[in-house]
Every structure is written in structure tokens, then in C-alpha cells.
């Protein structure tokens, strides 16, 4: 399949419009009938700093970034200019062309803006180009854009040149520009696009270029969506109409999407003073009878620890999303990692209960966002959707029909005033909100303003009416009941399809992963299978209550298991062992924590080195192997 794909990388400076240009181009490829998947890399700055987006497009489904790329459109960093020469930015300006150049495949294409970039600054550029059979096209994109519109439109010129070189019709690109651009800038952009296209076709022998756009066809309408979009739409379809938050990368995406959409739905969004307030507001709104959410990334989520516990103790339904980025502390704000897993599982004092789901794909992000709300409200428990900068930000095509589902605005086990009248009350009329013996541990709740429903919600241990109680019998009854809910949730989750399998059932080896690395692992399994290796994979989403039986059966069915995760300390592997209580000698780890997600080849090579060759040294890559106990 790798020959049949285009991996187009557009690189430039932060603020150069890389994100919107690549999104439109990905959509054009999708509309032409291809499956697409994007991977973006950006620094934590507003202006300047090398950024790129890769679009992988193929006729077959693509669920991961690829290995390297075969087309580079290097725009140059227009913000990397410094009045005091060399003072701060150093060689930043050339980076769009120089960075990761080694990953450009043999026979690959380079288009660079000769108005901004000078390849003589790159050591041995010409030799390397010749050695690797790269086709290099220096084009004055900036000059062309300046002549016909404005300099910033050089992205468009780059897209026009790309289309000319890969044999792609301008039709879909033009349609998209018409949809997306205001009149004023549309015409010059169209002109620039066509001129660049024509110029390249006239001046160069494009037939000699080996990289071409694949052709494909979709059976149904596709949507280009990110994990953040999918999470937001899942929330909306579950009737979530309240969000409170405080900006933090990368969670800000969900917060922004919800905030922009909620007014149209008669919902409420609140940007508040800090994350403690954000989570507390979600608790307050939910208590008052509205489906509510909040969320953050590592540091902000840390501040939510106490309100999270309050929701658990008061059995207030609550959905939080946690968009992981590389830590500790401020870490690397725009880089993905999965190392908040333990933080999210265990933060907040006491034997506190929660649900944690880690979706693996854009589709799962939508589904599990819905499951998170359903569980939170049906079982009156906080539910956390754990994802990362990779899943949140990457774009992928998803069939439109995936979203054609009924809304579910139900609040879970709540009572009408008529029903409340039938419920146990104290002599003074207080409703027994927290009864001891109830099915599944879930006691129905009332909403403030309802007649006959008054009770006290408190973070202190409490008796059935909610009043503070430190009686040992009551304590045990309440803790046992709250814990019982997790068993019911486990059984409930067994009816959902949250795990993902790839490879033959009877495989000899296994790869275990969670969350956003799932697609990459599955592609690696496909390649290993093609190469004759007997391996399968399991992508787990149910972090808490853990998918114990499924994972156990998976591990039991193979000889050896490699656990793949973006952490430095093997947190997921630890979670598996904690829940299963054994298999230390059967599990080894492949870790990556350099700020970039795994590429499929790294998993393939890592697996071969670790399991087949047994020494674990895949030293070409920035991955780390941790052997099984006793190895």
C-alpha cells in the first residue's frame, strides 16, 4: 500500500496559515475519493517556529500517520526574521526545508519557495537530492503571490504547484476555496492557484515525477473531522448544553468548538477564572439538572482534582475531558504524550470512583464521548474522556452516516414530583437521596426546585438524606454502594464495543496499546502480517473499570506481548499488571516520549527487535524498549 499513497508535507512558520491550507487540501483529497489522515507538528508559539502538517492520502483506509513523506512543500517561515541578525531565530528560517529532510522518501518531490529559502544553507543539499533521486522545484511562490494578490497567498501558489506535479485536477481545490473564502480574497487566490498550476506544467517536465495522486472512490459521503470535533458532537448529541472551562492546549479545541456551537442550541458556555472553578461550575450545573461538562489538559486537570472528588462523593453526574500533552509541569504544550494516564486514574483523595475511557480513533471519540455522558448520568458518577493532542488534532475522514443517530438527552435516574412523593422521606420531609440498598448502587435523584425532593449534597460522608454522618455502619453501606456502581458499569461496558482488534485471532504474538496509538499499531500489525509475522493487536479504551477479561484473554492467547504507549514509565503496562495481577514475564514495553507519536515503522521495527530478535534494540528510532520481567 505504501507505494499507492501520497504523503504531502506542508511546512512553514507558525502563523503562516499552514493549518488552514492543509485542512482544505486534505478535504480536496477526501472529496476526490481518497481516505485521508493528517498529522500536525507545531511549536508552542504564536508567531514563528517551525510547523508542518502531513496529509496522508490513499485509496485504502488510513488510520495512522505514515512513515516519512513523499512530497514536501516548503513555504519558509515568514516570521523567522529577526532585526538583530542571528540573535534569536538562528537557522529557523531554513527549517521548513531542512528539518526531517532525511524522512523524505527516495524519489520524493520538493517544492520550495525560492523567494524565502536558500538550499545552499543546507549542507550537501544537492548531493543528497541526487543520491535520493529527489525531484526539486524551486519556485518563486512569494513573488507570484505578491504580483497577483498578497504575499500571504503563497500557500495557494504552493497548492497549485502541488496539483500540477502530482496530476491532480484543480476542481476540488477550487470548490473548497469557493466554500471557504470571502469574495474579496477568493478571486486573487483562484488566479494564483491557476497561474502556479499552469506555470509548473509549462516550465517543467512533470511526467518525470514519480509521485502522483492516487485515485479512489467513496461509497458514501465523508466528513473530515478531528477527535476534538467528534468529542464535541458526541457531547451535543447526548444533550450536553453546559460547558465551563479555562483555556489550555490542547483541550482548548473542544472548549472552543462547544462554545461556538452552544448558543445556537440554547446552551451555555462559561470561560471562568481557573480550572477549579470550571469543574465546580460543571458540578453546580449538573446538580441543578443540566447535562454539563468541563475539561482541561494536565496542569489544569490537576486543579480539578478536588471538585472531581466532590462529584464522586455527592454522586453528581459529570463529564470531564482530559487532553494529554507531554508533561511534567508545563512540559511540551503542543506535543502529544499519554503520560497523564495514572494522574487521571488516581487523582483526588480517598477511595474515589470514576470512569475513564480512552478512545483510539475519531469514530471512537464520538462514540465514547456519548458513552461517557450516558454512564455519568445513568450511574451518577464522574466520567473522564482521556485523549491527547494527537487524537484531538489529527483530521481523518469518517463516513457521514456515522453521526446519523438519535439524540439522548435523558438525565438518567431522576424522579418526577409524582415519583418523588412515593419515595422514602424523613419525618420532616427530607428525601432519601442516598438510600443504602438499591439496584446497581444507583439511587434516583431529585433536582432543586422539585417539590418533595429536598436533600443535602455534601462532600462529607452522609446518611440517606445527605446529612453528615460518621456512623460506621452508614459509612460501610455508602462506600459499598458507591463502589458497587463500578461493577454495574463494567457489565454495561461489556455491551459496548469499545475495544479494537487487528490481525489474525490465532496469532502467536500480541501488541497491546491504548488510546490514540491504536491506528498506528494496527497499521504496523498489517505490515507485519504481510511480512509473514503472526501478530495481532488489541487497542483498549476502558481504562476504568478496566477491560480486565478482554485483556486477560488476549494475553492468554499469545506467547508474548509488546505494550506500546507514549509514556516514559510504562504506565499502561503497569495498569495492565495491576488489574491482572500477573504476566510480568510476558509483557515488554515499547515506549516513546520525545514529543512525537509513533510511526508505524517504529512499531514494526520495535516489535521485530524486541520480540523476534529479542534484544529490543531498534536504535534507528527514538523509541525505548523495556524487557519483560526476568528477560
Amino acid at each position, binding site marked *: 500500500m505504501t507505494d499507492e499513497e501520497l504523503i504531502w508535507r506542508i511546512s512553514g512558520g507558525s502563523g503562516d496559515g499552514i493549518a488552514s491550507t492543509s485542512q482544505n487540501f486534505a478535504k480536496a483529497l477526501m472529496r476526490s475519493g481518497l481516505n485521508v489522515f493528517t498529522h500536525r507538528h507545531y511549536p508552542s508559539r504564536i508567531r514563528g517556529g517551525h510547523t508542518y502538517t502531513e496529509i496522508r492520502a490513499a485509496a485504502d483506509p488510513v488510520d495512522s500517520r505514515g512513515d516519512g513523506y513523499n512530497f514536501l512543500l516548503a513555504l519558509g517561515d515568514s516570521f523567522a526574521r529577526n532585526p538583530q541578525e542571528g540573535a534569536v531565530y538562528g537557522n529557523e528560517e531554513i527549517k521548513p526545508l531542512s528539518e526531517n529532510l532525511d524522512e523524505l522518501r527516495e524519489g520524493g518531490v520538493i517544492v520550495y519557495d525560492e523567494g524565502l529559502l536558500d538550499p545552499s544553507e543546507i549542507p550537501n543539499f544537492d548531493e543528497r537530492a541526487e543520491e535520493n533521486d529527489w525531484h526539486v522545484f524551486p519556485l518563486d511562490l512569494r513573488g507570484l503571490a505578491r504580483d497577483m494578490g498578497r504575499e500571504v497567498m503563497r500557500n495557494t501558489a504552493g497548492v497549485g504547484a502541488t496539483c500540477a506535479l502530482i496530476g491532480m485536477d484543480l476542481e476540488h481545490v477550487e470548490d473548497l476555496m469557493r466554500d471557504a473564502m470571502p469574495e474579496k480574497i477568493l478571486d486573487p487566490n483562484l488566479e494564483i492557484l491557476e497561474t502556479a498550476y499552469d506555470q509548473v506544467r509549462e516550465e517543467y517536465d512533470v511526467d518525470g515525477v514519480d509521485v502522483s495522486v492516487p485515485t479512489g472512490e467513496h461509497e458514501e*459521503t465523508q*466528513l*473530515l*473531522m478531528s477527535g476534538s470535533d467528534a468529542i464535541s*458532537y458526541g457531547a*451535543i448529541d447526548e*444533550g450536553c448544553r453546559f460547558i*465551563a472551562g479555562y483555556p489550555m492546549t490542547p483541550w482548548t479545541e473542544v472548549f472552543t468548538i462547544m462554545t461556538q*456551537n452552544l448558543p*445556537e*442550541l*440554547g*446552551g*451555555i*458556555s462559561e470561560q*471562568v*477564572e*481557573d480550572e*477549579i*472553578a470550571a469543574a*465546580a*461550575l460543571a*458540578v*453546580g*450545573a449538573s*446538580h*441543578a*439538572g*443540566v447535562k*454539563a461538562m468541563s475539561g482541561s489538559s494536565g496542569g489544569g486537570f490537576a486543579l480539578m482534582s*478536588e*471538585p472531581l472528588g*466532590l462529584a464522586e462523593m455527592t454522586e453528581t453526574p459529570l463529564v470531564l475531558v482530559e487532553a494529554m500533552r507531554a508533561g511534567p509541569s508545563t512540559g511540551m504544550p503542543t506535543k502529544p504524550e499519554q503520560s497523564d494516564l495514572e494522574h487521571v486514574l488516581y487523582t483526588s483523595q480517598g477511595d474515589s470512583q470514576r470512569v475513564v475511557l480512552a478512545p483510539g480513533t475519531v469514530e471512537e471519540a464520538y462514540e465514547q464521548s456519548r458513552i461517557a455522558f450516558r454512564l455519568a448520568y445513568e450511574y451518577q458518577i464522574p466520567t473522564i474522556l482521556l485523549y491527547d493532542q494527537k487524537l484531538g488534532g489529527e483530521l481523518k475522514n469518517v463516513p457521514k452516516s456515522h*453521526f*446519523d443517530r438519535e*439524540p439522548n*438527552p435523558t*438525565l438518567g435516574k431522576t424522579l*418526577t*414530583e*409524582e415519583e418523588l412523593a412515593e419515595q422514602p422521606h*424523613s*419525618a*420532616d*420531609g*427530607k428525601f432519601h437521596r442516598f438510600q443504602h440498598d438499591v439496584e446497581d448502587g444507583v439511587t434516583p435523584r431529585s*433536582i*432543586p*426546585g*422539585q*417539590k418533595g*425532593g*429536598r*436533600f*443535602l*449534597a*455534601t*462532600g462529607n460522608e452522609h446518611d440517606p438524606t445527605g*446529612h*453528615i454522618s460518621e456512623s460506621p455502619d452508614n459509612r460501610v453501606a455508602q462506600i459499598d454502594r458507591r463502589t458497587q456502581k463500578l461493577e454495574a458499569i463494567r457489565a454495561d461496558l461489556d455491551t459496548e464495543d469499545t475495544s479494537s482488534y487487528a490481525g489474525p485471532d490465532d496469532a502467536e504474538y500480541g501488541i497491546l496499546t491504548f488510546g490514540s496509538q491504536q491506528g498506528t499499531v494496527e497499521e504496523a500489525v498489517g505490515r507485519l502480517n504481510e511480512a509473514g509475522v503472526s501478530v495481532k493487536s488489541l487497542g483498549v479504551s476502558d481504562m476504568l473499570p478496566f477491560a480486565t477479561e478482554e485483556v486477560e484473554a488476549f494475553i492468554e492467547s499469545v506467547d508474548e506481548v509488546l505494550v506500546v504507549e507514549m509514556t516514559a514509565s510504562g504506565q499502561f503496562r503497569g495498569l495492565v499488571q495491576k488489574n491482572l495481577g500477573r504476566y510480568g514475564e510476558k509483557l515488554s514495553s515499547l515506549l516513546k516520549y520525545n514529543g512525537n507519536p509513533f510511526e508505524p515503522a517504529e512499531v514494526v521495527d520495535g516489535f521485530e527487535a524486541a520480540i523476534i530478535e529479542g534484544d529490543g534494540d531498534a536504535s534507528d528510532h527514538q523509541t525505548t524498549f523495556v524487557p519483560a520481567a526476568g528477560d
Partner: protein
Amino acid sequence: MSTFSAIGEEREIDRDEYTPGVEPQPTWCPGCGDFSVLKALKQALPEVGRSPEETLLCTGIGCSGKLNSYLDTYGFHTIHGRSLPVARAAKLANPDLEVIAAGGDGDGYGIGGNHFIHTARENHDMTYIVFNNEIFGLTKGQTSPTSPKGHKSKTQPHGSAKEPLKPLSLSLNAGASYVARTAAVNPNQAKEILIEAIEHDGFAHVDFLTQCPTWNKDARQYVPYIDVNDSDDYDFDKTDRVEAAEMMRTTEEALYEGEVLTGRFYVDEDRLSYGQEKRQIGEMPEEPLAERYWDDDYDWERSYDQFVDKHE
């Protein structure tokens, strides 16, 4: 029967309705000023016609937070410092509820200070009662943000080196539209102020001086007090920000010289509440959001119909 039929019900409300039938676990010491807040609230609520089941009382943690155990309404005893964010969200979710938040000086001016500033700034339509005993009561008498300079406690053995926080001035500057101070020893004024605060459409902050005879031994009983609105010695316009600021400053300084000044310090009836502001810009529905979940005829929007087309 509507969903929330306790709300807006026209009937006589008896003070005893707020008294729990079962005696709560006793927590307040004899002579504690907190009893006065309870008493004043029990008088004020029936007078404003708000029944226990249309009232949501959100408290923080502290002796003051135990108010929920003594006052029977819908209650949310939250966590230390966080009563305001919980309360204001409940108000946004269902503006028909009567929402009151309450807590201690440590709770509201210390650990929850950020929420205090921002809730005042946003002018949420709610009442906030701070039980100001100038001490951490529940944790056994440590120095609080309002303890006077030089105050000695186990955690400030050499006497506090810090100037006390000035809650009234802070409130005014942050944006509260009703700011008052009353004292436990002044039941009539306390009741009147609470009535006004509850009826006020905006953020009403009541700094309630409550003596703590257990830990604040040198503490005054906050007597004698002077009502600055009635006294001939003071003349200021409580609707004028500048004059209010001046009066607050005098009051805050006088307290540490043994003079207890109370009354309404700032009242702005014109400023829109946060809910009104949000509705004006189209970011909050006209009907209480909480009611929608019970409306069988409501046609719940789907992302499929509403949003996904732009991803095609």
C-alpha cells in the same frame, strides 16, 4: 404539574419549615455568632417568599459551612472555598432558583478568593454571606485573611505580620452590586439586610461579623455597633461608588480600632445581572435550561443536522 412546582408557588411559608425535624449533629459552640446568621436567614426567607424547595443553599467548608445542617433547603455543602462556582452555575442552569452561597472568611476571602473576585465581577444574581469571625474556626483558631495585624495564633506565634484583607473594598472593586456588613448582635438589621440582598438582582455580598468565642478569645462581640445608614456621624451616598469606597475604608479601619460600623455600603440597582447580560448577547436561553430536560415536546438538536455538513 410542572417539573419544578416548588418554584414560584404562592403560599404562606412558615419559619419552621427551614428547621430540620431531626436535630442536626451539634457542631456550633454555645454563643457562636453563626447562630445569628441562621436566625436571620430563617426570618428573611419567608419574608421574601422563598420556600425551602425553591432555595439552593451552597456552602463551603468551615464551621460556617455547617449552616446546611441547621437550615433545611435544597443544599450543597461543597468543598473549601468553592461554594461560589457551584452556586453560580446552578443559577445559570436554573435562574428560577433562589441561590444563596455562604461560608467563612477563610473560605471566601482566602482559599476561594479568586472565585469571590470573579463572581462579584460578573455580578451573578445571588446572595453571598460571609461569616466573618476573623479566624479559622473549624481548624481550631488559626489566623485568617481578616485577622488583625499582630494576631497571635498557633500558626502565627509572633503575631501576624500581614495587614488584614478589606472585604468590602475588595467586593466593590471587583464589581459586586450590593455590599453590606452586618453583625451577629444586630438581629433586626441582619434580617433586613438579608432580605434586601436576596431581593437584589445581582451579586449581593453580605459580610456578616460572627463572633467566635471559642478561638477568638480577644474577640469582641462586635458591640456596640453603629449603623452607618442611620448614624448622624456618617453621611454618604450608598449609590455613589466613590463615597461608598470612602465609607468602606473608614469602616474597615475602624473595626481594628474597636468600632463596629455596619449597614449598606454600596447599592447599584441599575447594573444588569450576569444572566441578563448573557441573554442580551444571545448566550443564554430565555427559558431555564433545567426545564428543557423535562419537556417531552422539545426537539433535541443533533450534530448531524446542525453541524456536520461543514466537514464535507
